């Protein structure tokens, strides 16, 4: 029991310490592929430290909601991390239907981030806000249905049990195609929710074409640090949902399992870097189609699982 708690606390500590590092890996991969040397690996940490030392400029249009947005975003992602198992161990909080709370916590964070964007009265931020709202309305059902599929395959209703029971045996059974479709759907949701190519381009120079970055144009200093850190944690959270499926090997030793998890997350980050280097962002009108494809893929498991 105590060991379980230490393991889950260790998982949370890893997330808090290493989450920004995933961004370094993505950036370094992209830099290497395009023949640049790339920023130092610790650059995200330097940026966070710099932002945390700054003062603030608030738009005179805004209200308390603008200031509450970044905090709500950070706190809800932190809550989500506490619900997620790491490295084969159990999550800190686990109960039947905990993934519902996880999904809805992310929704709360999004709700406040979007309202904070609308609070500025800027059209650019409004644009980002409505795209984020629309795309997440399409990706949320995908996530929930995919989790239903995983629940049906493993016969359990909490994230710890679901990810604890996914192993090579589950894959090798007749459920193989079902799991692959869920994985593909999760991958698209992962890219969309974390504002990556092909849904959103975090490095574009034009406000008009951005989604997530457009929403946070007016945030600065500590608020921006909160948002950046929450973004890194979200990448970590949703990443774990994917890597738990791809690398389901369990040794039963905390350090070994943690290493596998960390390694798999790093691999995922490299994959994102490769995707971002090899393709451009989709036309805005195409994104709902991509997300609809993800939705359809997240429903297909029913053909194999329910007979």
């Amino acid at each position, binding site marked *: 029991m105590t060991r379980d708690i230490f393991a889950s606390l260790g998982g949370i500590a890893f997330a808090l310490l290493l989450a920004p590092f995933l961004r370094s890996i993505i950036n370094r991969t992209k830099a290497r592929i395009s023949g640049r040397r790339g920023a130092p690996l610790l650059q995200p940490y330097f940026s966070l430290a710099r932002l945390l030392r700054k003062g603030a400029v608030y738009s005179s249009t805004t209200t308390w909601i603008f200031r509450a947005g970044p*905090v709500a975003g950070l706190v809800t992602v932190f809550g989500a991390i506490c619900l997620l198992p790491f490295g084969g161990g159990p999550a800190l909080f686990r109960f039947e239907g905990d993934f519902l*709370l996880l999904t809805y916590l992310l929704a709360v964070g999004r*709700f406040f981030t979007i309202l904070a964007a609308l609070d500025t009265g*800027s059209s650019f931020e409004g644009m980002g806000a409505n795209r984020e709202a629309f795309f997440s*309305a399409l990706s949320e*059902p995908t996530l929930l*249905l995919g989790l239903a599929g995983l629940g049906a395959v493993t016969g359990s209703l909490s994230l710890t049990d679901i990810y604890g029971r996914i192993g090579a045996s589950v894959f090798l059974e007749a459920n193989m195609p079902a799991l692959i479709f869920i994985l593909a759907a999760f991958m698209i949701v992962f890219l969309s929710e974390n504002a990556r190519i092909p849904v959103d381009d975090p490095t574009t120079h034009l406000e008009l074409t951005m989604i997530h970055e457009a929403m946070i144009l007016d945030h600065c200093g500590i608020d921006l640090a909160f948002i950046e850190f929450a973004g890194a944690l979200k990448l970590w959270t949703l990443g774990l949902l994917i890597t738990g499926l791809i690398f389901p090997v369990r040794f039963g030793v905390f350090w070994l399992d943690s290493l596998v998890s960390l390694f798999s997350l790093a691999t995922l980050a490299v994959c994102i870097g490769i995707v971002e280097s090899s393709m451009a962002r989709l036309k805005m009108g195409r994104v709902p189609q991509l997300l609809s494809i993800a939705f359809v893929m997240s429903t297909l498991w*029913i053909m194999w699982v329910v007979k």
Partner: protein
Amino acid sequence: MSFLIVGCLLLYVFAGVIFILMRSYPQSGTMLAPLCSTLAAIFGLVPVLNVLLSRASINISISWSSFFAPIQMRLDPLSGWFALALFIVSPLLTWYGTGYFPHKRPFEVSINGFFFQILAGGIFFVLLASDIFSFLLAWEIMSLAAFFLVIFEHEDRSVQRAGWFYLAATHLGTAFLFAMFVLLGSRCGSLDFRDFVGLGGVADVVFILALIGFGTKAGFFGLHVWLPEAHPAAPSHASALMSGLMIKTGVYGLLRIMTLADSWPGWWGWTLIGVGAVSGVGGALFALVQHDLKRLMAYSSVENIGIVCLGIGMGVFGTYSMGPAAQIAMAGALLHVLNHALFKSCLFLVAGAVTHATGTREIDLLGGLQKLMPRSGGVFLLASAAVCGLPPLNGFVGEFLIYLSSYWSVLPQELPFVDLRVGGFVVIAALALTGGLAAMCFMKAYGTTFLGLPRRQHADPVVDPKPAMLFPMFILGTLCVAFGLGGSFLILLVAPVASTLHPAALIVAETSLLRGAALNYMHVSLASFALLVLFFAFHRLRNHLLKGRVVTSGPTWGCGYPLGTARMQYTGSSFSQPLIAAFKLLLRTELSGDWPEGYLPGRSSFATHTPGVFIEFFYKPLFTFVGHMALRVKRLQTGGTHVYVLYLLLALISVLCWSLL
């Protein structure tokens, strides 16, 4: 107890009469009548809580005429649950009403007060009535009282149209109920609900008739056409009562009739899930494209009724296939009924305050109200988050249970019921899509109305309403938080009610699964509470860090363009544009206006309008056809007495012939 119940009904009538009598003394009348109405609610709450906690039921029989059967009334856990919502919300709405009318129209205001009380009492009467005669009597009292509330501003043509819509819809629905009761009564040879046993094959027909009849009142998508007309027309507290409680009597009626059947066949579940999914997603989609704040909320009521219906459908499925989670889904549906009554009335009250202060309900003409009306804005934000089903607010409790039941159903079962698993799968998909769209809808409603800059100058200073209107909003908002954080207790309270929802021939008394669900929800509450504390801690931390540093304020970043105006902000219409583009086949939104042309464009304009798809493509053709047919039949009416005598003779002869056969 029966004294309190009858007393409650009488006090509602009494409160209504005071509203009329005190017309000449507005000051004392505004105090006395609401006090009387509050007393009625307290009178009602005692037996309701008693019934809910003791799981007993109270029977009352009133003989009022030697010709007719006595009026049978019965308060059982199911009616008690719906009455609980009524007694929490109605006194608050009455108090709000005392502050609502600024313009001096004593006649209309007193009539409105009267019918408001009659509507509240009528809803309670509907919940109590347990024989055909008194049920239909109560149903008509309720429906007609609501009609008089809708036509408050009766000179306005659009209000007349709304009233006409409502009256036609409610009576068409009642026609189906008449047919249903005729069928039930003739089958069982009695008027009393208790005698309706052993329905057998009739049950299927009764179910369909109930679904249409009660569905019209509840506002299932397709039968909802009166909601978006009637809600904007009525005064806000009246819309709150109609949307929060009156439409729930439709759900109540459906459940009441369903429990009469011997068994619940699987296709009932599929039908309810289908109706729920279409209402949920359709309601949310149409809510998103509305420009009128109260019309948006009317569509949102359709969406929430859809969620309730999904829960009931899942419950029917679960019962049919003896799945594990029927009760959980039913409990979720019932909880959503109560919670929707709370947050939707809250939203309507704030919308009323906004309309009052600014004189408009057009979302795209508002903006920046959070600064001008901070208290109303805060309550609206809270209720919006609740309607989106976000934890830790009360909207999440019901949805959590319906989700949980569906996920249970998807799991591998001992008995191979494919239907149940596919049903659960459909419910998850529908709920998730509904939830996402509803969130988008209320982000638009709150964001455009309350955030940013005011889009136009208002004639009068825009401020928070007076305390009589503000306090009911506060109390409802507080209840939204309290019922969310204390969701486990709510689940335990609703457990006995949910356990009464089963086919007549089936005995289910076990509520252990629901106790498990309550325990699960305790985790949600605890985690939410911890995160709330963390939220305030981080808020303080940020403010603490900023203390010694330079904190300035400036204009919003305009990407280098310094001359932005409030008119250039994103509007509600712009917010829903990507959705309109993606769902244009379904929504059929019409774009109109003068596009800017040439090198030096002149005036240009743009407008969007989304017609009610059912009115345009179903009801209009249908009623035009009926009208044509009626005109043809009119030829029989020549006006000559001799022809009518001939008709009489023909009728007599045909009756004679028929009796000879």
